[in-house]
């Protein structure tokens, strides 16, 4: 880094442009409105309902994803079986699916006229236009983010560590809890944060599958969309909150990843 040739200048310029472009819209959210006005705009019922609903539904989706996804990711990381790459591809598919397609798919599967629609109705479960439907949509779009990260994290755990646990008298469940999870902790928490971030920002699939009813299915992104033509400051205020939460999430990921308690060990 001592000699600064034209190439080094080019690299620095590229980074500067990238950074400016990515940061500018975020800064603009805060720069456009005085902080006092932002806080006032959050006072409306619609905004508070939306934030509260977003918090509830994303946490519920995250719990479902982690509880079911962690053992599934462990299986994918530690076993070889026929058709495994097919399974992995199927799990990753929602990552590249347009949100509108995800919404249609959910309707076709779980909607009133969908494949499981009548079965769900018989069981007394309503998803469409209900809060539960929001959770289903969030889980669908966010799960792959967690699964991918968790699988990679488990795969990176030295198999000898698990073997050592077994020879020390631990059954597979204990090896999973006491060794695999702590050793994959950094990757797992990253996956949780990514999935949570994705769920917080989810828009299209929720709108199509669950609708946009204040207090029931209108999450923060839907509320922003609903209010931006009528009440721009309120939309801006909600956006600012989401930026702050997302930034905090990102920061938490980086810090957790370094914590030795969560297995953030770069041996």
């Amino acid at each position: 880094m001592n000699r600064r040739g034209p190439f080094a200048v080019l690299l620095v310029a590229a980074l500067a442009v990238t950074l400016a472009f990515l940061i500018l819209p975020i800064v603009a959210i805060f720069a456009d409105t005085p902080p006092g006005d932002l806080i006032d705009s959050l006072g409306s019922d619609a905004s508070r309902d939306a934030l509260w609903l977003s918090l509830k539904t994303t946490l519920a989706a995250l719990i479902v994803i982690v509880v079911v996804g962690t053992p599934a990711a462990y299986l994918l990381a530690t076993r070889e079986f026929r058709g495994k790459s097919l399974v992995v591809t199927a799990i990753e598919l929602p990552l590249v699916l347009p949100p509108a397609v995800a919404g249609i798919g959910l309707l076709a599967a779980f909607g009133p006229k969908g494949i499981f629609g009548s079965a769900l109705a018989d069981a007394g479960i309503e998803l469409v236009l209900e809060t539960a439907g929001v959770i289903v949509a969030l889980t669908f779009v966010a799960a792959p983010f967690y699964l991918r990260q968790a699988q990679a994290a488990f795969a990176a755990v030295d198999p000898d560590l698990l073997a050592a646990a077994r020879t020390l008298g631990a059954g597979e469940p204990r090896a999973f809890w006491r060794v695999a999870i702590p050793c994959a902790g950094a990757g797992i928490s990253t996956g949780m944060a990514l999935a949570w971030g994705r769920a917080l920002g989810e828009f299209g699939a929720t709108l199509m599958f669950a609708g946009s009813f204040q207090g029931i299915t209108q999450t923060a992104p839907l509320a922003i969309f609903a209010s931006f033509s009528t009440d721009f400051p309120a939309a801006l205020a909600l956006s600012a909150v989401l930026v702050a939460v997302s930034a905090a999430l990102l920061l938490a990921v980086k810090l957790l990843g370094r914590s030795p308690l969560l297995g953030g060990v770069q041996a």
Partner: protein
Amino acid sequence: MSSGLEARFAAGLREFELELELAVEPGTCLALVGPSGAGKSTVLRVIAGLHRPDSGSVALGERPWLDRERGVDLPPERRDCGYLFQDYALFPHLSAWRNVAFGLKEVPRRERRERATAVLSRFGAGELADAPPRELSGGERQRVALARALARDPALLMLDEPLSALDSTTAAAAGRELATTLAAAEGPAILVTHDFADAALLADRIAVIDRGRVIQSGSAAELSAQPGSAFVADFTGAAVLFGTARATASGTTVVALDGGGEVRSSDPAEGKVGVAVYPWEITLEPPGTEAHGSALNRIEARVTSVTEVGSRARIGLLAGQPLVAEITGESLARLGLAPGVGVVTTWKATATRLVAR
């Protein structure tokens, strides 16, 4: 009451079939030696229950661990073996004592720390109890891993390349400690190494493995003196004599051999050592010849075996301890060597390696 290990199994590996039969008496150590990729580690994994063979059985005394025909296949946690992994496999998120305590599930929670620290102390690592593995040196890791493997008093001890992760100075000290541990072990032990000299120092019997099969087994001296094939001849490399070293003013080290006689080496050493000399460094002369060259080491010996391997001949010798020389078929004919014949062995001090024991 300790029982011996008996195992015979076949397992398909990527490039060849692993097929072998081995028995290890209690209180003895068998070394599996061979080049990397010969299937040595898989043997340990099969015995520990970490790899399921296609067929075969593993039993410790009367207790079957695996019997594919009878449908017995105990999971690793129910086979009673202490396993030292190649890179020690210490849990990175647990301190040294918690690593050891991981295997002490049967000990009441309140007593675990005390017990774990006591075992660590036995391996000279008591003061490391609170250190996380990433702060330990290679030698310290090995001690913690050994303490962890032995804390449960396993019925069988298995060591996978215990010295290969260490630098040569540390390896010598760790090898000494390992020899003490193995000598004290009541059950059978299996050591995997690619280094014949390590095997000769630590094990009672050696099985040479290549491409999944035991191609020859016996004591280190037997293998070295009577290699069954050119592969074993090349692989066995140095013959090892045991003795006690002391430094001299001239800078050479004099080693008093355990079976009588003295040799000199240019390696510095003190105390109990193994003297390693390659068979092809040894010159044989008829008895009664006067010293005439630069070789400092001259020991009288008797021929015990003559094994021709291609154009070479391995001459097994007894010079207080077993020793091996390698000469050409031409020299063999000229010297008229046969079992019982006396010779003088000579080699240079600079061709004499000393390994701590």
